[in-house]
């Protein structure tokens, strides 16, 4: 999160709304530890990353849906080992769970 502060400041100063996605849990081999974070603004601009680049695209879509009020803040799971997982997987075969929410707190 620390590395996102400057971008978030800039976006908020320009009047953009911001969503935050944070890794809360990993199973098996995962590229990033809990706390890895990425911020997305309502223009679709991105700061930070939550994996080795495997799931960022899907996270942006989900974040934009949340900012547009089309989805509630929630845990999103990526990985092969979970039947309900998103179609996008991690090449390392692990599972990561992200919490995505608007930065309105």
């Amino acid at each position, binding site marked *: *999160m*620390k590395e996102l*502060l400057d971008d978030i*400041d800039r976006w908020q100063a320009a009047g953009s709304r911001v969503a935050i996605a*944070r890794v*809360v*849990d*990993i*199973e*098996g*081999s*995962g590229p990033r*530890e*809990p*706390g890895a974070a990425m911020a997305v603004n309502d223009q679709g601009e991105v700061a930070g990353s939550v994996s080795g680049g495997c799931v960022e695209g899907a996270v942006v879509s989900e974040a934009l849906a949340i900012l547009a009020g089309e989805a*509630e*803040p*929630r*845990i999103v799971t990526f990985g092969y080992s979970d039947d309900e997982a998103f179609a996008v997987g991690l090449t390392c075969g*692990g599972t990561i769970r992200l*919490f995505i*929410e608007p*930065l*309105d*707190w």
Partner: protein
Amino acid sequence: MSQPAGTLYQRLRTLLRAEQPVALVTVVAGPGVGGKMLITPTDAPLGSLGHPELDRIAVRDALAELEAGRSGVRHYGPEGQTTPEDLVGTPTVSAFIESWAPPPQMWIFGAVDFTAALGKVAKVLGYRVTVCDAREIFATRRRFPMADEVVVSWPSPLFERRGHTLGQRDAVCILTHDPKFDVPAVQGALATGAGYIGVMGSRKTHAKRMERLAEVGVDQPEQLARLMSPIGLDLGARTPEETAISICAEIIARRTGRLAPSLRDSSGPIHGTLDGTGG
């Protein structure tokens, strides 16, 4: 309980920029998703997860996670229940405790070429680096621009003043080969809670040092077991830079409890410590 939107984030932002210890607890599943508390070791918590008892338990757990520098998900009942029998028949509140601990410290004794290389690698790994040497002409900022501080001092005064700040996540690396300096540095380091203490030297230097340490009363097996001497993994490192990698690799392996063979020649999970935490 409630506060204007933005308050919590602004406070978090200030604390993160000041590198102050802070934990953010967020309800990520169950009743009250999105509920938050901001917790520090010194200030009253901000925010609420929705029930006073749940808040109390969350503060307790967040402070423990912060102390250990860990982040992860905990599960509670909506009124702070934690035991399996109390949780039967209640919805589960899953809370993500994210903690930001101050960076771990590495104290390097001896202002030598190995120190500059080790300081660089330590910075890459996120350490706050202190270089200490009693010789004013060697212990200069100019020679160690990567260090967060360069202290001109004998080891003992530095340990007396600040040894209590060293904990499990911190490392002391003694790179002087000079018994005048490394014996008091080892004594000082053993009196702290530092998680890693490494001492450089050839096998011969090491043997002589152990004799000198015994002379000053450092001879207890539990004391000697804490010393990584000679310092570093057996990588065949030659240059200061390679040696720095071998030292830092050893620090990581000691923390995770690994033996550090090549992954090709071992089996089992790639991540996590061998005590079963992590994935």
